[in-house]
């Protein structure tokens, strides 16, 4: 009986081989960028194969590194090819004109009830939905600043955990609400990415 880990490792190495072979054969710049993303996924599979709590904690930074490199490379590709996208109007769907208010409010309230990372994702989804459907004329620097400060509070909460463990309840609440605001702010920016001066 071959252990599961070995089978998984074999599959991951085979996928890596296929991805590298494809990357070797491909000459078009954009397609090569997409193929590197394929390799990133195999990287995450390598970490995920370990299958412990620690591996779960390691996947997130691995994913962040991959995504940030992908964004940086896309930006380089866009600049070097000289692509400038004209700003497009938002979604023109009649239902979307009236629906987002109540739906976004429900999602945001439910996200605040959930709090923490998942709550931020739910509330962020509501804000994305609102920005996608309605016009967006917000002060984006303000959102980014709020996101930055809440990230700092999150880190402060971790220092409280390490240095003053007796105040753990305060730190839990601080971390929960700070990560809620951070994820919400970061995700809400996605809803506004449609070119133009603010994007």
């Amino acid at each position, binding site marked *: 009986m071959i252990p599961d880990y070995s089978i998984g490792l074999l599959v991951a190495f085979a996928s890596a081989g296929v991805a590298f072979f494809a*990357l070797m054969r491909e000459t078009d710049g954009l397609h090569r960028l997409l193929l*590197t993303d394929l390799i990133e996924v195999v*990287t995450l599979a390598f*970490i995920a194969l370990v299958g412990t709590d620690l591996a779960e904690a*390691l996947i997130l930074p691995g994913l962040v*590194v991959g995504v940030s490199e992908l964004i*940086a*490379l896309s930006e380089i590709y866009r*600049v*070097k090819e000289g692509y400038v996208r004209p700003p497009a109007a938002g979604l023109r769907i009649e239902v979307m004109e009236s629906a987002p208010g109540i739906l976004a409010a429900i999602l945001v309230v439910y996200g605040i009830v959930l709090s923490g990372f998942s709550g931020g994702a739910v509330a962020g989804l509501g804000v994305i939905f609102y920005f996608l459907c309605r016009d967006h004329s917000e002060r984006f620097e303000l959102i980014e600043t709020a996101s930055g400060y809440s990230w700092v509070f999150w880190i402060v909460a971790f220092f409280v955990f390490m240095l003053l463990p007796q105040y753990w309840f305060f730190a839990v609440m601080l971390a929960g609400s700070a990560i809620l605001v951070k994820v919400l702010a970061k995700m809400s920016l996605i809803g506004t990415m449609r070119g133009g001066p603010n994007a």
Partner: protein
Amino acid sequence: MPEIGGSDLFVLEFGDILHYYSPYTLTLFLLALIFTGLAILSRPEGQVDIAFGGDAYYAKETAVSEMRFRRFMTIACGLATMGAMGSGDIFNFTLFASLVGITNVGIVAAVKSRHVLDAAYEYGIVAMVATLPLFGGAALILATTGTLSIPALAAGAIAVPPVGKALLALGVIGEGMAPFYAAKAEMFRAPGAPYVIMCSLSSLLIFLRVVEIAITI
């Protein structure tokens, strides 16, 4: 534990995740620190073009404002290198190494000219692909030994698989390829001299560190 870097001078523990400095890594850390300080203090180099066949020359002035992004990337690269020097956890080391890779892409890509951006794009793809052996090696080491802490691995309860070490080294080589691409794009002749050197220095330092790690564990 083969202490090729000398005995530990300083250890900061967070559980089994720790930072430590031996004389070897401290030397590398100080190199990165000094160069980051120089990059913060120095002004961009002014260039002089000699007109061929005469006495005339053109002096090019490079303003600090043009170089802001590259200076920021250089400082970030220096911080990432310093982190990689002190880290006693293999996964943290791989994260710092890939951060060095990303900031090097930023340094190379800061020049807005077509062939420089082409080189930066090629290097970025290499750096991105190199995360596969880098994280793959760390994951293999974790899976076989159950720990990522360098002192615990060096204590040697379970032997670290050579393929894990090889993948780790291969990944760092991929992340540290920046000087070749900077040379390919002739960036060493482009204005903004002190910042480009950070590519070479950080690549050298992370490579020296991964050699130490591969021998120690």
